[in-house]
């Protein structure tokens, strides 16, 4: 099984006719994801890839297709508006891939989602891939393999690196989730950890954090108190200088907080081993698993 998606997932793509939107919709379809519609205002009544109907509005798409999930590839100036539109139309899961959404747009979006009970993943994230079930976003399908390890990460290609190593070592994944690197995001590390903890299909966790904020620390506290499964972590940015934004808008060490050292300490304090190198994650996970099986 997986988190956030299941057999009933029905997906629409907002911005389906854009460069990224069309490319990755094809990728999602290739993976067998149930993409039932797309949205581009003014292109209603066109059809994508000979099988996916396009609508002018999300409301129209939801009404016609019964979609409950939206994946957003809309440029930054309109990304927040696209999220609001999806939430307003009644989908329950929104995955926003768009990078570069203004932070205050997200501040405005959050209560709107909360009022409607809508889960958002992202923005500025690779999305979610539940091997064998569905791909929502841009993660390469070639690197995953069905299994029982949950992966949650704030980054993109670093996630791929780790997932690729897991798959290479024969450790399949229940769900690979990239929550995004921005300061204000819909689904936090903690939310993801809670969902994995409740997922019967997940029996181990890999956390890929990075500098900035305290999401990893909060997840660590929760894991220590409430979760009983093997967990290993990795934190990117140990060598980042303070006050500089390291690519991700959220990856910035401010006023001495949010450092990799803080996060490592919190995680290790919660009994979660932290890999020094990405390459150590797999052996570390095997170690923890072996210890528990003794």
């Amino acid at each position, binding site marked *: 099984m997986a988190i956030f998606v299941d057999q009933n997932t029905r997906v629409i793509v907002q911005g389906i006719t854009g460069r990224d939107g069309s490319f*990755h919709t094809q*990728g999602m379809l290739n993976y067998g994801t149930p993409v039932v519609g797309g949205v581009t205002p003014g292109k209603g009544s066109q059809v994508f890839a000979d099988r996916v109907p396009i609508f002018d509005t999300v409301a129209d798409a939801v009404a016609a297709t019964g979609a409950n999930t939206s994946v957003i590839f809309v440029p*930054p*100036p309109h990304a927040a508006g696209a999220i609001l539109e999806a939430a307003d139309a009644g989908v329950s899961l929104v995955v926003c891939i768009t990078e*570069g*959404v*203004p*932070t*205050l*747009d997200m*501040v*405005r979006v*959050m*209560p709107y989602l909360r009022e409607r009970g809508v889960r958002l993943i992202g923005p500025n994230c690779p999305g979610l891939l539940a091997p064998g079930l569905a791909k929502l976003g*841009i993660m*390469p399908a*070639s*690197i995953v393999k069905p299994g029982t390890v949950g992966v949650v*990460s*704030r*980054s*993109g*290609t*670093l*996630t*791929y*690196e780790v997932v*690729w190593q897991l798959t290479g070592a024969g450790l399949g994944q229940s769900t690979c989730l990239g929550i995004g*690197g921005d*300061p*204000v995001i819909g689904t936090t590390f903690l939310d993801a950890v809670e969902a994995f903890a409740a997922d019967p299909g997940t029996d181990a966790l890999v956390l*890929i954090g*990075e*500098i*900035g*904020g*305290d*999401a990893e620390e*909060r997840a660590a506290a929760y894991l220590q108190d409430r979760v009983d499964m093997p967990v290993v972590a*990795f934190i*990117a*940015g*140990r*060598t*980042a*200088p303070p006050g*500089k*934004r*390291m*690519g*991700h*808008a959220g*990856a910035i060490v401010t*006023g*001495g907080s949010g450092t*990799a050292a803080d996060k490592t300490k919190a995680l290790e304090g919660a009994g979660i081993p932290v890999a*020094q*190198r*990405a*390459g150590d994650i797999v052996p570390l996970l095997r170690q923890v698993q072996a210890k528990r099986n003794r």
Partner: protein
Amino acid sequence: MNIHEYQGREILRRHGLPVPPGQVADSVDRAVAVAKELGVPVMVKAQVLTGGRGKAGGVKFCATIEDVRTHAKAILGMEIKGHTVRKVLVTPAADIAAEFYLGMLVDRRSGRVLVMASAEGGVEIEQVAREKPEAIVRYEVDPRYGLLDHQALGLGLRLCAGDLKKARQLGAALQKLYAAFVAADASLAEINPFIFTPAGEGLAIDAKVNLDDNALFRHADYEELRDREAEDPAERAAREADLSFVKLHGDVGCLVNGAGLAMATMDLVKYYGGQPANFLDIGGSSNPEKVVNALRIILADREVKAILFNIFGGITRCDDVARGIIQATNQLDIRVPIVVRLTGTNEDQARQLLAKTQLVPAATMDEAVQKAISLAAAAA
């Protein structure tokens, strides 16, 4: 994007905050002229994009025009934490009866704008947070309603122990600061200190405003606030080429796709005893033009002794990426060895392409990093 104090003051002034007069000067004569116009005493304040100006001697009280000349001369050209002072702000020195810290930032945890304020004004809020955390009042603003009158007044009353007149001014200042924060798409806005004169007049003495880079597209006018001279030339070139770049001080230049992987790569260089020269994320698609720009920026750093490409191809085909890298390296005069690690679709073809070049292939991150470090060491 960080902007200067004098620029932040202008944004605050536009939103109705009581900012004292003052002008920026890039020469001693101009500073003296401004001081004469304002009348002494004045403050002369270094305009640099870093903190700690005061401790570095970059902020001076001038009782006389002679003082202005002396201090402006000393401050202009001064180095503060690696930043050269090119401008000073000259502004009237105010009599201070009470000082407050008023600040706002986007709080990740709540996803809201967090107001932080303290009656311990004039010192860094981080220091107050460490030494006297109970002296900081905090309030998370509901974006749907903004900072409401009673909330602002309540904060004001807490800051000045029920003195209604001051509380109203502090509350109004917080509401205006919030309006400025939202209108400017700020990521941080601080007034430190917000003072009261002995006559009870509230004044925003200092202003620190950072702007959200992601929101610059809707503030075309802010481009002119950017101080190109104060930027590191390499960082400016990277920004203009749409690359995420941070200059460090090592000898291994790093060229990575994705911010997380770029950080992990830097960390790995350090782990194996090397020194990364930079953080650089070339983003999703590694088209030759971006690679050329990235290489040019890295090669401009004479400390760089080896370059490391770490590309996790994902959906992009690795042979395409390899061709891009080869094409880019052909366009430039490459004076250092380049290690290339490519993983993803068609990575074997990519390796075959690289084999015909001077580029050093590597199969894993660890291998690539180790090779780059030893090549850099050999070149040193």
